């Protein structure tokens, strides 16, 4: 069989699967989700699984990851959640309102209902679709378009559940919401997770998303989160990725910001097999601000690709991006950051920086800044560096009696520190600081009882 046919067949496999389970997908889902499903499927058929010829997936070859015969989770699994064992997020002093996602499906915390302010909703996508389809319809698929990215199309075609967050006007959450995302199955499993977050005008919230794997099976997790940040609203979105080496994580996050809103999106990748993070932000009102931070620590044959697109659609907005990677062994990294300043989006301030530390000669990094500027009164800048640990600085530390290993660790920590310190939730910041140090130290940074399968 030629490679070409094989590739076409790979997409066909998923198309065939959709047709096989179509009834199951439509059954029990609301019209809102099902209406989008039809078009999404068409869009997936047109696009197929992206190859490296697709400019947006140039540095990440997804094809081998779609080859295995995965089991799908199109229905809610019951009695799989053993909250006694999985609810051990051991972050001290991290006081959050916590819920679970299990193989893409939302599960309520067994410890009883959360004491959320009146009007705040934290439930499953399935539940909101059933109880308030009007609310869902207002936002669902409004930001993530299925014709622009096949992974968005595939997610929307298979979407059944995920979490839904709604913060009504002028409500400020005191505690962060924490979603713990677990993968656990007896077979190789394909997981689809679809989330929606709506922060209404003047509201404020923080959300912490922790990704974990519980056993060594192979997973492909295609998750998509749409986030709407209303006028003068404030939202902080933290992601901690800590999954084993057989996991493929495709995490697409689409954010729309209205005027005067402020966003922080912060991603820490401690571990994962292949991770592709898509972060798309549209600044849809004046005077919006987005601060975007990412850091990744990878080794062995891991691959991490952060792809960002910041659209400055309106004047007077500010965006600031800092991504830092530490790559060891034969790991590979990619960063592509696109900033798009629309016509008449004057007085835009857009900054982007990507710094990478290669610890070995075998590790590689691809970095691609792209600035498309269609306005003439803007400040935009980008910078990228790929380098090794500064030998002069290393010698300086050693000349004061600090052992080489320790000195290297201090330097790596120093490198990551800039991104760590941007975490505003203190307990989380301290925890991630500790995890990063452990990770850099060569100890497995466990923040949960999960298997990393570090051999592969």
């Amino acid at each position, binding site marked *: 069989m030629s490679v070409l046919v094989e590739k076409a067949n790979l997409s066909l496999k998923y198309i065939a699967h959709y047709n096989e389970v179509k009834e199951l997908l439509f059954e029990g889902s609301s019209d809102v989700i099902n209406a989008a499903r039809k078009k999404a499927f068409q869009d997936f058929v047109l696009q197929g699984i992206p190859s490296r010829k697709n400019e947006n997936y140039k540095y990440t070859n997804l094809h081998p990851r779609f080859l295995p015969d995965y089991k799908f989770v199109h229905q809610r699994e019951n009695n799989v959640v053993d909250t006694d064992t999985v609810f051990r997020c051991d972050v001290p002093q991290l006081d959050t309102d916590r819920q679970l996602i299990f193989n893409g499906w939302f599960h309520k915390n067994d410890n009883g209902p959360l004491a959320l302010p009146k009007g705040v909703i934290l439930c499953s996508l399935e539940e909101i679709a059933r109880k308030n389809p009007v609310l869902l319809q207002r936002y669902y698929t409004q930001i993530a378009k299925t014709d622009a990215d096949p992974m968005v199309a595939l997610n929307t075609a298979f979407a059944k559940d995920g979490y839904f967050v709604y913060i009504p006007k002028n409500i400020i959450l005191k505690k962060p919401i924490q979603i713990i995302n677990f993968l656990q199955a007896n077979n190789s499993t394909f997981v689809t997770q679809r989330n929606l977050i709506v922060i209404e005008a003047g509201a404020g919230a923080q959300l912490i998303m922790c990704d974990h794997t519980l056993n060594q099976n192979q997973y492909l997790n295609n998750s998509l989160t749409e986030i709407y940040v209303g006028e003068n609203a404030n939202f902080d979105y933290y992601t901690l990725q800590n999954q084993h080496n057989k996991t493929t994580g495709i995490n697409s996050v689409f954010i729309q910001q209205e005027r005067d809103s402020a966003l922080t999106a912060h991603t820490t990748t401690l571990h994962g097999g292949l991770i592709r993070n898509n972060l798309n932000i549209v600044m849809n009102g004046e005077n919006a601000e987005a601060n975007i931070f990412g850091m990744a620590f990878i080794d062995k044959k891991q691959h991490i690709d952060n792809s960002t697109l910041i659209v400055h659609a309106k004047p007077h907005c500010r965006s600031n991006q800092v991504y830092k990677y530490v790559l060891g062994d034969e790991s590979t990294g990619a960063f592509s950051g696109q900033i798009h300043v629309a016509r008449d989006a004057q007085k835009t301030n857009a900054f982007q920086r990507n710094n990478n530390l290669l610890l070995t000669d075998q590790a590689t990094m691809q970095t691609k800044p792209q600035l498309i500027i269609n306005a003439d009164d803007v400040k935009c800048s980008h910078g990228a560096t790929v380098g090794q640990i*500064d030998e*002069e*600085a290393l*010698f*300086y*530390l*050693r*000349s*004061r*009696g*600090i*052992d*080489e290993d*320790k*000195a290297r660790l*201090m*330097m790596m*920590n*120093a*490198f*990551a*520190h*800039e991104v760590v310190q941007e975490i505003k939730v203190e307990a989380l910041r301290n925890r991630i600081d500790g995890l990063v140090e452990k990770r850099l130290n060569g100890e497995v940074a466990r923040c949960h009882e999960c298997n990393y399968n570090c051999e592969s």
Partner: protein
Amino acid sequence: MSDVVLKITDLHAHYGQIHALKGINLEIKAGEVHAIMGPNGSGKSTLANVLAGKEEYKITAGEVTFRGENLLDKSPENRAKDGLFLGFQYPVEIPGVPMANFIKTAVNEHRKHRGEKELTAGEFLKLMREKMELVEMKTKLTNRSVNEGFSGGEKKKNEIFQMAMLEPKLAILDETDSGLDIDALKTVANGVNALKSPETASIVITHYQRLLDYIVPDFVHVLYRGRIVKSAGKELALELEERGYDWIKKENGN
């Protein structure tokens, strides 16, 4: 003799293709201050870096003993812990490494090496305050990274402060005076003098006699083309200040 701190015998070193040190002989005893002077590119900084253990320099012949042990076999960190200190000509900025964390780690590594207990946070802060006062260091160190954003003078004072914290047996100060105004120069010199003891020794590398007004050397050596071509008392420094290096160059065939 037991009070010899450093003994360099016929030391040759290469930096890439350059034969930078061509047979250095030098003996330094406890309590002594040696000044090393010489024109640019004569090998002064090379000597300092070789002694501190910088790996870019290849030792091609000779030996160095430090406090009776072979120095050249040891890693930079072990040389430091044995009591050798290099005050850098250009102290490097290390963003993200907090100054206090850095110096605390260094002090505790030294203590561990000597079989002493690590300092508690309280003890460390007390020591730090004492030593900062001793070297008249006014720079706020908390919440700052190593040398980051320090002025030229602050960086040099920071070197002397680190020296005070680590209490070396042999301090090598590589052009600590360059780029300093006269007040900063005095402060640095006062710091060095305050740390002087009958058990310790120092090597002061400089271009200018003016530092030696404040740190009075017992010996002055002129390094030229990788060799010590002249050694004498402190009066040699004055002569060099007056006459420059041309006569040295002439005497040595250029």
